[in-house]
């Protein structure tokens, strides 16, 4: 398609919509098909956990660093896991340099919420000494190439990063944290594996995994995070509206799709022991 510009041409919008009405997506997929995934873990030597994920041509690289700090007063025995996302200008001329904007904040928060409510990161295991010292995990998502659907790619990369992590284990000795010589791994830190599934909507038509042109012309999106059998978070964006039947249909579909993709990618294989 034309180089990405802020203004999308009317004929492109019409082209996508008229073909969607015939059940055709411009890249030949059907409405509920993902583009190709690739997942690699442990790609950054300096990080305690990392993953590179591509979904179609969208590429994200996520890394994990840890810090040791005092816990929140209301959760004295729990560590903290915080997410950040940056849309790098090299990923698209649409991304300007500068502090995080709405789109990058939304990406970070949607991935965060999908993981937070799924009993994924075991924050109680991230405690070194109650009230004194806990782990603070920083999971930072960098978008390297933007070609639609950053959320699903970001979600899988964040999950893979946590699963494959390797964090020095500390113990509390005489008021200080000392290294035990061992490492905390995905085995300890990660329990459930939530998957986030994003759909676009144009007119009456809903489709999975919007590619870039579809995302630029779509009227709304909805991202649903699921585990095996629970919905853990939802985010709807854009000015389109969804009927209750559509939402119920999508929730059910998300569980099927989430479980299927999890198995196809075999995310479990990245867990460090």
């Amino acid at each position, binding site marked *: 398609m034309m180089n*990405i510009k802020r203004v999308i041409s009317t004929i492109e919008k019409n082209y996508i919509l008229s073909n969607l009405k015939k059940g055709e997506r411009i890249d030949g997929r059907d409405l509920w098909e993902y583009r190709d995934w690739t997942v690699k873990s442990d*790609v*950054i*030597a*300096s*990080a*305690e956990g*990392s993953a590179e994920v591509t979904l179609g*041509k969208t590429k994200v*690289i996520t*890394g*994990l*660093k*840890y*810090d*040791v*700090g*005092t816990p929140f007063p209301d959760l004295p025995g729990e560590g903290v896991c915080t997410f*950040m996302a*940056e849309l*790098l*200008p*090299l*990923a*698209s*001329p649409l991304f300007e*340099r500068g*502090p995080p904007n709405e789109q990058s904040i939304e990406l970070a928060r949607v991935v965060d919420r999908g993981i937070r409510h799924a009993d994924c990161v075991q924050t109680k295991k991230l405690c070194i000494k109650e009230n004194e*010292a806990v782990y603070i995990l*920083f999971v*930072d998502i*960098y978008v*390297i*190439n*933007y*070609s639609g659907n950053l959320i699903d790619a970001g979600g899988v990369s964040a999950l893979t990063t946590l699963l494959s992590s390797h964090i*020095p*284990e*500390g113990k509390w000795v005489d008021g200080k*944290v*000392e*290294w035990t010589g061992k490492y905390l791994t995905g085995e300890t830190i990660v329990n459930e594996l939530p998957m986030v599934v994003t759909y676009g909507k144009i007119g009456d038509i809903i489709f999975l995994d919007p590619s870039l042109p579809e995302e630029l012309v779509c009227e709304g999106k909805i991202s649903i995070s699921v585990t095996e059998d629970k919905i853990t978070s939802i985010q709807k964006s854009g000015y389109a509206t969804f009927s209750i039947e559509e939402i119920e249909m999508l929730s059910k579909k998300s569980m099927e799709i989430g479980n299927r993709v999890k198995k196809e990618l075999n995310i479990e294989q990245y867990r460090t022991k």
Partner: protein
Amino acid sequence: MPLIIKDEYPEKLFREDGKRLDGRDKHELRPIKMEVGVLENADGSAYIEWGNNKIYAAVYGPREVHPHHLAKPDRGILRVFYRMATFSVFDRKRPAPGRREKEISMVITDCLEPVLFLELYPGTSFEVYINVMDADGGTRCACTTVAALALADAGIPMRSLVTSVAMGKIDGEIITDLSGIEDKAGEADLPCAMTWFNEELSLLQFDGSMDLKEFSECLTLAKDALTKIHEIQLETLKKKYIEIQEEHKGGEKEK
């Protein structure tokens, strides 16, 4: 609070067998892998893996200058934005751009400018975005090297490429291509870059302690290293096209 494992370095930076800690000889380069055209949304792009350095560079331009007041009426401007990912270093780096990043951005801008014809593009800007995903010594040199490739990939006319390497001194010996540990624990650090159309240096910084003889030796050895790395850059640029030509060799003339 401090991290659980400290960033500590051994006292000796040479092993018993005379090799450096990562097994290299004094003037051996680390493994370098480069690729161009890796990011389709940018006008030009390149990627480099140099030791554990992993760096993406992308070029946009020529294009309008934002903010407008920076535009020059008689020539184009070159802007380089060097940024490191938070997880690219041992101690997590804060996401916002810091002073070091701004300084390095400026140094790389000055280093690349001599090869461009900015006076041909008045009122426009060329932007180079360099993102370090993993850092491991000699990072600004790897960035310069990959940025030059990205500019060539964007089809911007250049007098020549620019190549860069970090020379240094550890345990009293001049060495080529500092690794992360050698950078932090060594006695001197000399990042430099050469523009090939006039074979002169366009980037030169020095931190540490060397006498004049060592310094002169260092510069001579730098040229050797730069020549080798330049070869890799040239091969990278051509590789993509030559592979396709090989695939479809007709009965045509090969000049």
